[in-house]
């Protein structure tokens, strides 16, 4: 069985950044990802990033991924496994990985430290006929269009006006698909107004305090009914509106993919601000299990920019815990943390900051590490 200093599960923005950082500290690294190629959600993000130049502002997600992957492939101390799912972490510290397109071989590795960067899964909504072909997650639609060049349908209803809903709606329009409407259950638009305005200018109505009630169709989606809701999220009678659509796009949030973390036995808590169950962790991204670090959306739903910095912090500190100190460890560690707090120093990050306060293991706080 092969041993590695660091094994990273998840090759999205957090995992890519963690791998490069860990490798720069001379540790042996294995990067495991279940996709056909590395990059996670970055490879379908054709839009340019916001923020500062350190977080790749003005660069498209797909280019950020290419840049990382290129460097990772050139790193002699990083092994890569794609089409590989980490299926279990056992008491003796062994990680099992199911490899191959059809899952036909089982690999076991022994990491000295594990970085879990498994990301998130799209939320489902319960409504009548939610199992009809034509009902998609917005992320799935983005993958179909931007990675595989396949359009999902002709007339779309987007459910959810957060950033994912708004960006995917705009990209659908760019692909010459008609977006009939966007509905948002909350009383106001959740995403950035710059995205919402762009869509509104193109004539797409955005209905707030409104949600999807029912989808119609026999073999596939043939139409949808939307309905206004009150403050308690109950349908308001007589406010239904029928839409002629063949595709439903659900952009109703993400949940951290935490199964592997549960298996490690680290302490978990339900934090609504972070969108589900997440692991407690210290400012170096170490969980309550000494050998387990986390980064990215599995720590709480946020953005690719923060995921990359968390990956750097996790990579730097996981290797340091094994005795591989980067020659500029102190400088880099404080630089990354400063960048992260700058990134979160805005009104949109209020909930994130509140959530983090609930899961952070303070420095000097006596914590009995489980092994």
């Amino acid at each position, binding site marked *: 069985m092969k041993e590695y200093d660091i094994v990273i599960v998840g090759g999205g923005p957090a995992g890519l950044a963690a791998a490069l950082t860990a490798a720069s500290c001379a540790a042996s690294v294995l990067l495991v990802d279940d996709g056909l190629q590395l990059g996670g959600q970055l490879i379908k993000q054709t839009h340019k990033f916001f923020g500062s130049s350190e977080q790749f502002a003005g660069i498209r997600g797909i280019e950020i991924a290419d840049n990382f992957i290129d460097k990772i492939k050139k790193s002699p101390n990083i092994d890569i496994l794609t089409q590989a799912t980490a*299926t279990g972490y056992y008491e003796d510290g062994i990680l099992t990985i*199911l490899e191959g397109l059809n*899952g036909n071989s*089982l690999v076991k590795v022994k990491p000295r430290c594990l970085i879990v960067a498994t990301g998130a899964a799209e939320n489902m909504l319960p409504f*009548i006929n939610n*199992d009809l072909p034509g009902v998609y997650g917005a992320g799935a639609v983005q993958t179909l269009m931007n990675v595989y060049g396949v359009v999902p349908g002709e007339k779309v209803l987007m459910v959810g006006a957060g950033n994912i809903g708004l960006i995917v709606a705009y990209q659908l329009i760019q692909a010459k698909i008609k977006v009939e409407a966007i509905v948002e259950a909350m009383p106001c638009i959740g995403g950035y107004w710059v995205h919402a305005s762009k869509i509104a200018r193109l004539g797409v109505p955005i209905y707030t305090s409104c949600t999807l009630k029912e989808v119609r169709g026999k073999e596939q989606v043939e139409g949808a009914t939307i309905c206004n809701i009150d403050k308690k999220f109950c349908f308001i009678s007589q406010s239904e509106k029928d839409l002629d659509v063949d595709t439903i796009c659900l952009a109703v949030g993400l949940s951290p993919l935490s199964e592997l973390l549960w*298996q490690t036995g680290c302490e978990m808590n339900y934090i609504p601000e972070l969108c589900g*169950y997440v692991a407690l962790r210290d400012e170096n991204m170490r969980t309550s299990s000494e050998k387990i670090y986390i980064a990215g959306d599995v720590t709480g739903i946020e953005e690719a920019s923060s995921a990359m910095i968390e990956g750097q912090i996790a990579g730097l500190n996981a290797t340091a815990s094994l005795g591989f100190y980067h020659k500029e460890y102190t400088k880099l560690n404080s630089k990354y943390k400063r960048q992260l707090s700058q990134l979160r120093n805005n009104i949109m990050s209020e909930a994130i900051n509140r959530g983090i306060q609930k899961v952070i293991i303070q420095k000097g706080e006596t914590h009995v590490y489980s092994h």
Partner: protein
Amino acid sequence: MDDNTIICRCEDVTWGEIRKQLDKGYTTLDEIKRITRAGMGRCQGKTCQRVLLNAIARYLNKKVEEIPLSKFRPPTKPVPLGVLAGDKND
């Protein structure tokens, strides 16, 4: 929620089937899983667990975090038995 609404798409379990069990007093995720198979299909609950937890919480008038979760055991996704049996890398 309408009784015909599908909660678990992998195993085709409707809200009506789940509500019937809740009415009988089976209110934990584990009990619902074992009786109805909700969350035991191909995706292992990645899609429906959150929906199910919210629905149980609403039915019991409790918070989501008050509903006990089931134990998470490996594997995180179905592994063919032949792959396990054929493993010679020990």
